[in-house]
């Protein structure tokens, strides 16, 4: 089919660099004949795109209703304490970024945590911390 869509290009850049660097945004803007501000507006709309480097592991914990009633907030608290970072922050050693997010689509298996592309379900604090400890 047609050439890569704009969204796919953004994914490719995100996957390549771990974020979408400024010069690539300018390139995309020029290619598409739109302003770089507009490209930034698009990128910033989507939670999974970043314009600054993040931690090596992006830890996403769901706090939407089904997980919430299965004590996701305790999980969030435990992970925050362990990583010593708050929602939206990256650890000093650039290893972890933490995001408390809305529904991850594993509502029957909450609470749920994603680390980069891997999803971990039916967690409790101990399980979650063990998983994080294994992230080298």
């Amino acid at each position, binding site marked *: *089919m047609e050439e890569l869509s704009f969204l796919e290009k953004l994914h490719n850049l995100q996957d390549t660099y771990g974020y979408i660097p400024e010069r690539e945004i300018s390139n995309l803007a020029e290619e598409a004949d739109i302003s770089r501000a507009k490209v930034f507006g698009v990128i910033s709309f989507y939670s999974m795109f970043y314009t600054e480097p993040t931690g090596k592991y992006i830890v996403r914990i769901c706090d939407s209703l089904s997980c919430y*009633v299965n004590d996701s907030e305790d999980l969030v608290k435990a992970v925050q304490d362990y990583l010593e970072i708050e929602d939206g922050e990256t650890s000093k050693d650039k290893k972890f970024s933490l995001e408390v997010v809305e529904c991850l689509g594993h509502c029957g298996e909450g609470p749920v945590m994603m680390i980069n592309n891997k999803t971990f379900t039916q967690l409790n604090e101990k399980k979650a911390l063990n998983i994080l400890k294994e992230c080298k």
Partner: protein
Amino acid sequence: MGERQLLKKEATTDITEHNFSALEKALTMEGAEVVKEIKEAGLKGRGGAGFPTGLKWELALAEEADDKYLICNADEAETGTFKDRYLMENVPFKVLEGIIIAAYAVGANKGYIYIRGEYSKPIKIFTKVLKDAYDEGLLGASILDSDFNFDLRLIKGAGAYICGEETALLNSIEGKRGKSRTKPPYPIQSGLFGQPTVVNNVETLTSAREIIDLGAEEYGALGTEESKGTKLVCLSGDISKPGVYEVEFGELTIREIIEELGQGVKNDEQLKFIIPGGASTSIIPAEKMDVDYSYEAIAEIGSSLGSGAIIVLDDTHSLLDLMVNVSRFFMDETCGTCFPCKDGNKQLNYLLKKAVQKGGFTKKEIELIRSIGETIILSARCGLGQTSSNFINSIFDNYQAEVLQRGNEDAEN
């Protein structure tokens, strides 16, 4: 009594094990005949809005254009919903068949399956599905040696709930901010890149596949007059056996679904209420749970079947906390375009949090929150805003006495 499996059966991720009988059958029919079957089977959109699928296809078929798009909406993100993930992970070739059949029926030559970015496993599976399908002549030119050509491409979402709204999804594929569009024009007239476009949910398309496979008559014999066939139900929350269950419409009541399929409330707690179709639907209190599981029966008691996500809540939770949680979801996920949705949901979240701090609402505050809620519902552009305060309103409808601030109910402020 129990599950009635159509969609769920014959699970496989191996193309050689899957029988493309429905697609083969469809390709021997005219597009219009396929549309007719779907209409006769009475299929309604399974994404949440429940629009008649056959009518949508009929309108799309009538459109003339160089390019016509068929989009499979797999941006499942409504809180409590994980049925499309189930289908993509377990019966991906049925999903694929449904897509191709739909494209054939409406005369679409190009298509996308837009899978939410967080669904890494379905993305992985479908990447392979597409490759295998091209290799086997199920996609591309002359599908299964017919004269039908159809290209399908996978697009990953990037973490924005609103992109599950069909017009926002179109903007997203076009590489724009995923904000909804003003309707009309509807996607059928002017959708992706301005071309006629059909957007269907994963379960809808898979059900369409079952209809062609079984024939409209046999499929239509399942369910009730207004709710035909089967529906995937996602059980989550305070439930003993959460999961995806397939039920025939009208066969079970919600109570039966919870007690028999889900084996009741977790830890033997007392059931308080359920949300029948994701966070954007109104709650159904425990005492009204003997309602048949069908579009019409649930509508009759003032809620909606929605996406089929039944979230079960026991009576151990603070209603105020639940309200804050749900309102945060809509506040976080609004695309930020309509002022009532963007500012209204923010203000609602603020007012609810304030109530949590002081332990309840005054009557005046409830009036204010309802009034803002009404404004959002009436004036927002898309489904997100138009349903964002259903949950909150229905808590007030059913449990107002429980959320009043004791001793201060009638305060002016």
